[in-house]
């Protein structure tokens, strides 16, 4: 289908409407004296759902990179961290250790997105000409380098403890903790919906056609006059910027950042979510991520009723996740909702 075929009332437009509604409701809860009381059993659900929304921004960006353009970015977490740490260092007041400049959070968030995008441009400019499995390694190594820097440069990044004292704007506006949780979830959900609308428009447009041509055969795209490298850079930078936005929002929600939030595990979770749902399909990757994170939620409840220890349970969960990845690649390489013909895999 082309743009003209899918013009009116598309999925992207619906998503934008939903996003608008979410943000309005979030504003309603945050800015008015209106309060909600959440049953305490639901706290864990809200926590996971908020993290899901943050990771949702990551997976939409990753899907633009891999699902549409074919770029293998195994260092996605570094852009997430770049957003988080930039926001933290610019906005934190009296961080426990490291830098905290106390600038307004809005400026810090914008800077967080820009820094992540800039880092994406830097990594992209140097690595996007590598063959795909080596691009994977180069990005992975980049992420590991930064992780080590976060841990070791205590005076700048706060070391293992990280940075605290980051403003929490929604908490500051809302009346109480329960209301904050709900408003945060609504606002983050709205951000995901807007992002969905944007990437959907982008990939439905002739722009997306070029991205998919680059994924299919870069040389053909070039022979037809498309600057493949420039499109790869754009997709990479947009994905990085979205991850930076996720990191910035996360920092402003949690009030602290630490290396433990930004491990290889984040990249793995987002990748498995994307592959499970079906790379290329924006709705699919969000759904796939929901399944993987739902597993995390489920395991929190299941932990209470099973006799094994928390650490044993964590191991079991990771074994399951690892085997899910193995199984998808082998038995359903296009994922649950992916289009096997569009991805060029046998199913």
């Amino acid at each position, binding site marked *: 289908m082309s743009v003209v075929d899918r013009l009116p009332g598309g999925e992207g437009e619906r998503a934008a409407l939903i996003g608008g509604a979410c943000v309005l409701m979030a504003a309603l809860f945050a800015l008015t004296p209106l309060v909600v009381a959440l049953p305490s059993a639901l706290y864990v659900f809200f926590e996971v759902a908020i993290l899901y929304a943050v990771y949702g921004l990551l997976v939409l960006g990753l899907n633009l990179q891999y699902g549409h353009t074919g770029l293998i970015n195994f260092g996605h977490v570094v852009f997430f961290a770049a957003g988080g740490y930039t926001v933290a260092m610019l906005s934190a007041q009296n961080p426990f250790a490291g830098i905290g400049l106390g600038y307004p959070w809005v400026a810090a968030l914008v800077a967080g997105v820009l820094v992540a995008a800039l880092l994406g441009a830097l990594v992209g400019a140097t690595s996007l000409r590598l063959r*795909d499995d080596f691009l*994977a390694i180069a990005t992975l190594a980049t992420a590991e380098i930064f992780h080590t820097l976060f841990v070791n440069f205590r005076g700048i990044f706060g070391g293992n403890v990280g940075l605290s004292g980051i403003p929490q704007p929604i908490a500051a506006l809302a009346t109480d903790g329960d209301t904050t949780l709900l408003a945060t979830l609504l606002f983050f959900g709205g951000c995901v919906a807007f992002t969905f609308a944007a990437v959907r428009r982008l990939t439905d447009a002739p722009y997306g056609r070029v991205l998919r041509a680059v994924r299919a055969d870069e040389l053909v795209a070039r022979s037809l006059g498309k600057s493949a490298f420039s499109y790869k850079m754009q997709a990479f930078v947009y994905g990085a910027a979205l991850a930076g936005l996720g990191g910035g929002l996360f920092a402003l929600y949690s009030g602290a950042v630490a290396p433990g939030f930004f491990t290889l595990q984040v990249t793995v979770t987002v990748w498995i979510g994307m592959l499970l749902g079906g790379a290329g399909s924006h709705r699919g990757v969000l759904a796939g991520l929901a399944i993987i994170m739902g597993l995390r939620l489920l395991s929190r409840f299941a932990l209470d009723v099973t006799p094994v220890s928390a650490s044993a349970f964590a191991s079991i969960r990771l*074994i399951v996740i*690892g085997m899910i990845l193995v199984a998808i*690649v082998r038995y359903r*390489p296009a994922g649950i909702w992916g289009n096997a013909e569009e991805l060029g895999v046998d199913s």
Partner: protein
Amino acid sequence: MGLAQNVVFGLVTGSYIAIAAIGFTLIYGIVNMINFAYGEFITIGAFVGILASGTLSLPLPIAALVAMVGGGLVSLVLARGFFTPINHTGPVPLLLTSIGLGLALRNAVRLVAGRGARYFDTSATTYRFEGLPDLPVGSVDLLGNLFVTSLQLVVVGSAVAVFLLLYTLLTRTDVGIAMRALADDEDLARVRGIDTQRVRDSVWMLAGVLAGLAGVLIGIQTNVSAGIGFSFVLQILAAAILGGAGSPYGAIAGSYVIGLVLALSTAFLPSGMTGISSAIAFLVLVIVLLVKPSGIAGREVREA
């Protein structure tokens, strides 16, 4: 501590990384995949060694042999179960599968063996080179009080033995020659009547044997835990790519470069910064990928 001492440490680290990197790079060259689960092969080998030497009270050399056999078998079984069936799908699905398998294996080991670290029961003799004159250059002392332990000699000696055996294998035996042929040109190898699957199986087995040995040697030098192999996998990868992915001799050279970079950066970084020595190893990897992606001895990994 003198510079010479750090060179010794670097050579020791380079030795066990080299043993592992040979296995890693052979898989890359012949199966055409980056095997991220290779760290877990090392971990499993190390645990087999711990079981053999601790629980069965076998002497260390025998325990190492058991670990090598165990590593070889585990590697072959895992390859047959997980990688061989999707061999035709290309490098990316294989890489993804190895990440999933690695995650599962690492946590399976953790589940069974717990989170604590275990140690090989070893006794080491330390040879000191007393009376070496100090040779200061600026703030750096070149010689200092140099010492070498018998365990370090075992590690380096094992590595040298592996290199010699590898050379013999690749140049003198049918299976080794077939491996080289397959790495050079798969189609041509097939036309010449080489049973490619059998060669791949041998490579998996060999890589597992090397992982088992590397696991025991790493265990002797440090300790054994569920994450031990994983903590080395990026360094092994860096060494293999530095040497030119697919080239075993290149991997040896790359490993010693990485080992020395790690040891020397630890020595020269201000205290409190020593943690970034691993970052420096990865930085070397990234720079190699960007500047000369074919490595010291290898082939092109950049797109045309």
